[in-house]
C-alpha cells in the first residue's frame, strides 16, 4: 500500500519532520511515483522492524467529541432499577447493560464490589460512580458510561451517609480515558443544580444536553 509522507509519519509514529530528515539523509526506503515521493507500507514495516523502530498507529484523539458524552451514548440511561442493597443494585445494573459476550459479568460485579470495599464511590449528594479499579482487565471494545436511576434510594454506604438514587457506572479501556471521564463526571456533579436535575430521572438526551452545558 502506498503512503505519502504524512501517512508514513503516522504509520511509524514519528513526526513528519523526522521523515523529511531521513529522506534528505537517504536512510529511509522511498520511491518516486510520477514526480511524487511515496512510501511502500510493507517496506516501511520491514525497515522499521530491522532497526527496532516500533510502528504504531497513533490513536487520534477525537478531540471534537467529549469522551464522556460518547461513552454515555454507548452506555445509555436506564430507569427503574429495582434493588434493596448496594450489591444487588450493581448486579441489576450490570444485567441491564449491553456488553460483549466474552465479558464475564460475574467478574465485573466482583470488581465493582472490590472497589466499593476500599472507599465507597458514593461521593455525596446521593450519586455514586461505581467502576472497576483497573480498566484494562475487561475485554471491552469501547469505553462506556451508563446512568442508572434507582426506583428507590438505598443505603449505599456513601461518604456523606446519604441514600443513593443514581448510579453512573464507568467501564473504560484504559487508565487515561477512565480518569478523564471520572474527573469530567465529578466536575459535572459539582455544578450546583445538577444533582437536583438528576432527581428528575432525565433521559439520555436531557442528560447529555445538561452535561454539555456544564462544560
Amino acid at each position, binding site marked *: 500500500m502506498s503512503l505519502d509522507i504524512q501517512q508514513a509519519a503516522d504509520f511509524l509514529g514519528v513526526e513528519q519532520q523526522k521523515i523529511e530528515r531521513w529522506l534528505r539523509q537517504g536512510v529511509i526506503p522511498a520511491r518516486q511515483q510520477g514526480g511524487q515521493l511515496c512510501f511502500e507500507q510493507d517496506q516501511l514495516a520491514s525497515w522499521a522492524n530491522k532497526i*527496532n*523502530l*516500533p510502528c504504531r498507529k497513533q490513536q487520534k484523539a477525537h478531540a471534537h467529541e467529549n469522551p464522556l458524552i460518547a461513552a454515555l451514548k454507548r452506555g445509555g440511561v436506564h430507569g427503574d432499577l429495582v434493588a434493596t442493597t448496594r450489591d444487588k443494585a450493581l448486579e441489576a445494573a450490570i444485567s441491564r447493560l449491553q456488553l460483549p459476550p466474552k465479558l464475564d459479568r460475574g467478574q465485573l460485579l466482583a470488581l465493582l464490589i472490590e*472497589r466499593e470495599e*476500599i*472507599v465507597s*464511590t458514593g*461521593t455525596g449528594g446521593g450519586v455514586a*460512580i461505581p*467502576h472497576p*479499579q*483497573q*480498566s*484494562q482487565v475487561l475485554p471491552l471494545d469501547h469505553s462506556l458510561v451508563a446512568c442508572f436511576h434507582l426506583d428507590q434510594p438505598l443505603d449505599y454506604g456513601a*461518604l456523606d451517609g446519604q441514600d443513593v438514587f443514581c448510579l453512573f457506572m464507568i467501564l473504560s479501556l*484504559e*487508565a*487515561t480515558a*477512565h*480518569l*478523564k471521564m*471520572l*474527573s469530567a463526571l*465529578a*466536575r459535572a456533579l*459539582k455544578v450546583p443544580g445538577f444533582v437536583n436535575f438528576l432527581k428528575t430521572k432525565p433521559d439520555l438526551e436531557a442528560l447529555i444536553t445538561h452535561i454539555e452545558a456544564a462544560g
Partner: protein
Amino acid sequence: MSRHEDSRSLVGTSKAIVALRMYEAREGFQLMLFGTLVGGLTGLAGVLLNLTVHEMEHFRHGISGWWAVWLPAIGAILGLSLQRFVFRDSLSHGVPNVIESVTSGNGILPRGMCLSRLVSSALTVGSGGAAGLEGPIVVTGGAIGSYVARIFNMSQRRRVLLIACGTSGAIASMFNAPITGMIFSLEVILGEWKSRNLVPTITSAAVAAQVSRLLMGDKVPFPREEIVHTSADLAAFVLLGLVAAGAGWIMIKILAWSEKLFSRVPLPAPLVAGLGGLMVGLLALIVPQAQGEGYDSVRLYINGDFQGTLLAVALLIGLRLLATGCTLGSGGSGGVFAPSLFLGSAVGLIFGNLLHKIPLLTFTKPEAYALVGMASVIAGLMSAPLSGIFIILEICKSYDLILPLMLACLSATLAGRFLEEGSVYTRELISQGTFRRRGSGVQLLADVDISEVLSPCSEVEMHQTLGDFVSRYGTDQKDVYALVDKEGIYQGLIFLEDVRPYLFDQTLYPLITMASIADCRVPHLGAEATPDMAWITFGGTKRPALPVIDGHGRLVGVVRKDRLFDSTRTELSVHEES
C-alpha cells in the same frame, strides 16, 4: 581550586598530550609484538595443517579397494571423537562462534579449540571428506589468539584484537595469502575497519605468511597463465557474479537440508559423521574426484586443461555437492571454502563455455570465467567482496583479471544479500538473535551491568486512594512509583505525568484509587536483563521507565530512559576513543 579546575589546567599542556601519545605508542608497539607472536604461532599451525592433510592425501592415493571406501568414515569418526572427547570441543560450527565471541566483546574461546579443529579437520578432509580447511584454520587461529591474550591477562579489547590477529595469520599461512588474511579478519571477523585494527592484523599476517614460506616454500597454490579480456567480457563477468551467488546459495540450502537429515539419525555424533564419511567413500568408488578438497579439478578448470564435456562438469558439480553435504551435514569437521572454490570454478567453466556459443560476440577463454567464478561464490557466501577478490588474487596470482574479479565479486555480494540475510557465518547468529554489530549502542550496552542503570522505586499499595498518595508522597521528588498488591507483588507503574491532571482536584481524592492510574501494560524486564535488552524494549513503548521484576514477581527497580541515555552516551564516547 577544585579538582575539576585542576585537571582542566593540565589537559591543555603539551606535557599531557605527550603523555597520552606515549601511552598510545607503547600500546601500538606492544600490539605489534603480540601480533608477531600470534603470527608465528598461527603460521606454524597453518603449516602443520597443510603438511598433515597433504601427507594424508598421498597416503590416500596409495590405497585401493574396500579400504578406500571406509577411509573417509574412519577419518571422520576419529576426527570428531578426538575433537569432542579429547579436546572437549562440541560446538558444531566454529567460525560463527569466533564471530560471536568478537562481536559480544568478550574474546574468550575455549583453550581446546587451538588444536581441536586442526586435528579433526586434518583427519576428516585428509581421509577424503569433501570439505575445506578455511573454517578449521580460522577457528584454530582465533583460539590461539584468544589463548595468548589470556596468558598475558589482557583486556577484552585486546583479546578481541588478538583473535583477529589469529584469524589473519591463519589464513595468511594456510593459503600463503597475507593480504587476504588481514582483509578477511577485518571484513568478516571483526566487521570494523578502524585503523588501529590494522597494526596487529597486518603484522600477524606477514609473520605467519613468512613462517609458512620458510617451512613450505613460496608456492602458488594455483599457478596459471595470464589471460586477456575485453570490455564485453566485463558485462558477462557481472552476470557470472549473479549466477555464482545463486549457485552458492543452492549449495548452502543443500547443506542445511543435509544437516537436518543427518540430525535425525539416532547415533552418537562421531558415528553420524562416520556414516557421512562412508557415503563419501562409496561415492568416490564411482567418481574419485568427488572426494577431498577438489583442488585437482580446480587446477584443470582454471588452466584450460580440462578435456571432458560440460555435462561431465555438471555431473561432478552434483556429485561433489552430494559429497560435501554428506561430509559437512553429518557433522564432519571442515569448511565451505574448498567446496566453494570447486563450485565456482566448475560453474564458471560451464558459463564461459556457453558464452562461446553465442554468435557474433567474442568472449575470453572459459578458464578466466572459472577463476572469477571461484571468487564470486566466496564473495557471495561470505558477503565479503574484498576477501573474495583478494583470496583469488593471491592464490592464483591473477592480477590480469582484477577488473572482472572486482565486478563479479561485487555483483555476487549484492545478489547474496538479496537472497539471504547475513553471510554464511552470521546467519546462525542472526537467527539466534545474538548478532550485534560492533560499536553499536546496543552492543556496548550488552556489557554494562544492569545495576549501573537501575534506579530504586517506591512502592504504592493498590488500594490507596489518590488522597492517601498525595498526603504521603506530596513532597516527594520522584516521578515514577510502583504499584504493588498486599503481598508486595508488582502490578504496574505509576507515572506522575498521568497523575498530574488530577492532583489538584480534591473532589477526586477519595474517588480515584492508585490502581486506576497505574500503567499495567508497561513491558517488563527480568532480573537477568541487561541494558541492551532495556534499550530494545524501549523501542516498544513511549514510557519513560521500565520495571525490572524478579522471579517472585517483585520489583527490583526501574530502568529510566534518561539514565540509560547517559550510560549509552558515556559508553559510546569511551569506546570511540579506544
